[in-house]
């Protein structure tokens, strides 16, 4: 993301790289500096590109995938994921917190590993079954 210029009309132009396909369109979003509402999108070559630009500008979301420690499992680490994508700016903190979590095998696939009490909707689940060693 790069902030390019400030307009006199209180618009801000932000650049994004489209991830839809290898064309990698350079998207430009004009947004209101106060409300952050998208006024115009340029540089896309398909509908998905435009939608992506708006989503990425207003509420970028990411799926969290990392591992937690597992005792007595076939492997030392259990892969986990957020059930649904979470706000992008929460990813690092979630992963950091998950470093302190330990579970014990066996673990079922999809088992809930951690729920963020303060942030409704953030739920970390096992992305595989982990048999006991």
């Amino acid at each position, binding site marked *: 993301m790069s902030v390019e210029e400030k307009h006199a009309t209180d618009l801000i132009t932000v650049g994004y*790289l489209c991830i839809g396909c290898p064309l990698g369109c350079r998207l430009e979003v004009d947004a209101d500096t106060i409300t952050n509402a998208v006024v115009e999108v340029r540089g896309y070559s398909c509908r998905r590109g435009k939608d992506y630009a708006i989503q990425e500008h207003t509420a970028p979301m990411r799926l969290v995938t990392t*591992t937690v420690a597992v005792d007595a499992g076939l492997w030392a680490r259990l892969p986990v*994921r957020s059930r649904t994508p979470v706000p*992008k700016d929460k990813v690092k903190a979630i992963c950091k917190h998950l470093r302190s979590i330990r579970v014990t095998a066996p673990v079922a696939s999809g088992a809930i590993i951690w729920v963020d009490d303060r942030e409704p909707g953030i739920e970390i689940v096992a992305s*595989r*079954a982990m048999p006991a060693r």
Partner: protein
Amino acid sequence: MITAAPRHLRASYDVVIVGGGPAGLEAAVAARDNGAAHVLVVDRDQEAGGILLQCIHSGFGLHRFGEELTGPEYAQRVVASTLEHDIDVIADAYVLDIDERRRVKLMTTQAGVSLVEARAVVLAMGARERTRAAIRIPGTRPAGIFTAGLAQRLVNLYGLLPGRRAVILGSGDIGLIMARRLTLEGIEVAGVFEIMPYANGLNRNIVQCLHDFDIPLHLSTTVVEIRGQNRVEGVTVAPLDETLQPRLDRAWDIPCDTLLVSIGLIPENELSQQMRLRFDSATRGPVVSSAMECSRDGIFACGNVVHIHDLVDFVSAEAMVAGRSAGQYVAGTLPRPDNVQLQPGANVAYCVPHTISTEREHTVYLRARKPLDACTLQLTEPDGTPVYARKLRYVFPAEMVNLKLRPAILQNFHGSILRVNIVERATEGE
């Protein structure tokens, strides 16, 4: 993961499959569905599932399952499917050799070395990573140089961290994914360096693995020296000129204790070479027919052992063909041999399969040599006479092109060699 470890191995199987990754497992199911009663999958790791088990990120399965899965989730589905199909899966085992009579020399932890008869074989050993030596980076040989996949295994399966500050060479998807992975584990990534003037990974990974974490990507730049006696202490990087020679006058040093090398995969063909199959020097895998049959009767291959795929979904699709063919081979219902040879032409690095039949429908996978916008995929006779053309928005070496070939497309073609070209649209008429 539950694996179907058989209590007793049979002395003979209809189909023995070497490798229990997505390719092998999918082929097993297809073989079972197409007439093979007894199918054995041999996997060298402590459980079947393949490299997907360490690919904990998401992005798998959109084509195959219509939803986005993590690697372990994809693997789990494929393993579950083999269980439902009453297939013997033996993990922590190794195929040492396969002789002319398709006797499989198998090593298992239960029975040691034994010989198992196979009526058909599917090779699905996957790939290995290119190493530092493949590009001959000068310097010392300290600890702290890892291929990206090894680092991924250490971090994601063992919880072992490869260092504190890393430089990543290669902007393929594995390199990008590992940049994010290390960052999330608290390891500083000083930068990703790419020898080519363009990134080799998906834009999605550029954005979500690098931009999200402010990790710099340096294009047309490479590591020219590794320093450090016992452990990596730093690397020197330099930009490249047009002839890909490093500009040492513009080199700079980066202190780091880890170098991840992510410079591509090579089909893992130790066994196929022992078996003296015919090879394609471009794919570095065996030459295969449209049935995914190799140059020896009853030996089939699929997945990364044939050529490097960018999506596991396409591995699955190819494996279904190989497995089906193995089943048909055993049942004696394998269709007639191919009658057309595919020949890579302009801007085409390779085509798989290497031969096709004008009577059947095929998916041909091919890879462009260099990126092109707005281009045309052409099939021509060897003398240039056009047979078929399809417009493409772009081609990109890192993205495989899938070409669906139906008999109708080739109904006016009666030759035995089809050349495959990718040309710029402006030069199309020439």
